[in-house]
């Protein structure tokens, strides 16, 4: 069991779960909010769920909760903005600090930080739409293909749930992938595509420090692990714990905890990796706010570890309160 300063059965007071918001991932957030609220209630924690709108700050000031559990995804939810507001109001909350969130949410920045810590991450180039416009898209896309090879991955630098993300198998598909990516944000991360076993490793960081949960292997039934495969039950097979040699499992656990630490994250995170045919583990990204829906990966890892999601969420709440 994760350890914390208080017993998980303790009543921390009213916990405010924030879910919804205005990002492209609002629907995912609402589902995650419901699930975490149910989990906390199962651990006998008093819970309120609310959306983020213009009445939030007055409500938080008038009737401050014991702790906030933010479950907002995309901009504002994961880039540290909302957490700045919570800090401003002096409210304890579950999750990473604003500055760390900003770093981890920006995929190219996070990749560079973990690369400097000795973790392999696929070669990549980050460019804004404006640059393609200024120097010529055709030549620039050609140069990207020459440098990174095919297939490659195009994704927005900030965002989740694979929204705006494409795998480009042939150069002719590159313009469509770029247009799809820029619909979600102004910067594109173009990354060498590593083929191999898709895995994710969740990290819980309560009183005793960060510890990895068992890795979860992701096997999409058809195609790739896109939005539909992520949120349609039955579309993906998950193996928990992943079928890995002990040494590889240990290596991945170390990788995820290292990423969590060098990015300066708190409480919980989830790191996505691909292990290629040579056994090299490639860091893709670390999620500041791991998904918590019925088909999300952190709850699967919690279950694989023999833990109860309600108890884990209550521990996270107590840790956040103790931190104040």
């Amino acid at each position, binding site marked *: 069991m994760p350890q914390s300063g208080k017993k998980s059965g303790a009543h921390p007071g009213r916990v405010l779960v924030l879910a919804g918001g205005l990002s492209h991932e609002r629907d995912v957030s609402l589902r995650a909010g419901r699930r975490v609220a149910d989990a906390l209630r199962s651990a006998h924690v008093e819970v309120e769920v609310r959306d983020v709108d213009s009445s939030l700050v007055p409500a938080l000031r008038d009737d401050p909760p014991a702790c906030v559990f933010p479950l907002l995804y995309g901009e504002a939810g994961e880039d540290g903005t909302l957490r700045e507001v919570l800090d401003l109001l002096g409210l304890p909350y579950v999750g990473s600090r604003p500055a760390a969130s900003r770093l981890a949410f920006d995929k190219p920045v996070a990749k560079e930080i973990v690369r400097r810590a000795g973790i392999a991450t696929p070669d990549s180039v980050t460019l804004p739409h404006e640059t393609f416009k200024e120097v010529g898209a055709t030549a620039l896309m050609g140069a990207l293909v020459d440098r990174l090879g095919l297939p490659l991955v195009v994704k927005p630098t900030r965002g989740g749930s694979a929204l705006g993300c494409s795998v480009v198998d042939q150069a002719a598909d590159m313009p469509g992938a770029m*247009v*799809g990516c820029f619909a979600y944000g102004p910067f594109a991360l173009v990354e060498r595509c590593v083929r191999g076993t898709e895995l994710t490793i969740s990290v819980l960081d309560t009183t005793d420090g960060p510890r990895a949960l068992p890795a979860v292997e992701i096997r999409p039934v058809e195609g790739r692990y896109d*939005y539909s495969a992520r949120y349609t039950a039955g579309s993906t097979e998950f*193996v928990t714990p992943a079928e890995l040699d002990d040494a590889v499992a240990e290596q991945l656990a170390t990788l995820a905890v290292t990423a969590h630490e060098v990015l300066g994250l708190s409480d919980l995170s989830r790191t996505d990796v691909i292990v290629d045919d040579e056994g090299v583990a490639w860091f893709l990204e670390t999620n500041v706010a791991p998904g918590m829906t019925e*088909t999300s990966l952190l709850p699967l890892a919690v279950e694989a570890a023999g833990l109860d999601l309600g108890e884990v969420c209550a521990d996270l709440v107590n840790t956040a309160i103790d931190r104040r």
Partner: protein
Amino acid sequence: MEQQPARPRRETRLDTYVERYAARTRGMTASEIRALFSVASRPEVVSLAGGMPNISGLPLDSIGEMVQELVAEQGAVAMQYGSGQGAPELREQICDVMRLEGIDAHPDDVVVTVGSQQAVDLVTRIFCDPGDVVICEAPSYVGALGVFRAYECDVVHVEMDDDGLRPAALRDALATLEASGKRVKFLYTIPNFHNPAGVSLSLPRRQEILDIAREHDVLVLEDNPYGLLGFDESPRRALRADESERVVYLGSFSKTFAPGMRVGWALAPHAVREKLVLAQESSTLCPPSFSQLMISSYLAGQDWMGQVKAFRELYRERRDAMLAALHDLMPTGTTWTVPEGGFYVWLTLPPGLDAKAMLPRAVTARVAYVPGTAFYADGYGSQCMRLSYCYPTPERIREGVRRLAAVIEEELDLVETFGPSTHALQRSYDTPNTDLT
């Protein structure tokens, strides 16, 4: 590094029944587009997406009194099961409503349904086997396409223009289908204030379409939810008014009264009606008694024609606001239809733009629409979108169009950089595209 002790390995797809679903559920998956509509419900977003009737003008106080009276006087009937065909008094009143469009019908030939959506379902259920062909306009109503998909029909789209379904295109499609030995079960058409195209079938064409249906022995499913919501003239003559044996007519109170009642109807030839009643009984036993009696009381005791007139004026004001905003703000190369009633404008983007790919950018800009691909069974329609003017205020409509115009400008910039989208199927149909620019 310390790790949690793991439980025994398991493989899960998080759905115990994943191997047991019918093949027709294959497309029932989470989608990015559907998820984006979650944001559209927020007040910060100007939603030009949904087709929610604007019921703000309904006299809720007097309707409340009507409900009280209904429960006091007919509560035992209203709370009980009813006839599978629907309440007799309401069926008589429905005939009075249809008379406004030239239809002379007998209440025995009316089947009350749970919205006209259920009528589409029941008609498809009794006529279509998997692989049977249903002909629809291009584009067509997304809810009907969903029904046809559920019954595994083969949908064939036929081109429209500003006067609605093109007779020549219908003839060609039928000839091609007959030559290939395909069974065409019916033509599904929305002749008035089309959803999503916003156009109406011209009066001369109505007779021509009926002639073609007779020549090729094809049943016509006439879906007419917006028929009484024309802005500038009295109701247009229904196809069913001139052909009683070959047309199944569908009507609804969702737009003329309130969608929450979920009451619609089908008017069908005798033999078809018998099967519809049996299908209705096996589907829901009976349409809801309470809603039927409510509507019956409303039609008998309230100025429902006056309310429809008020709806028409409300929607006309909003239509005008949208057309003016489109005219003032849309980039060159954007075209749209000019509806004379109903809820919708069908907008065609400049060449190379993909409405579906553009939707995330629109949601970021706090405006929502429905991409055109939703209205085609075959993946086309990417260059188009449906804009609804029925619900937002005129001021919000203009603001929504302003935001949308900016999004299109940005997308044009993107396409200028990268070239046209290669993801979407290229448009192959002629679609209504009245150009006001």
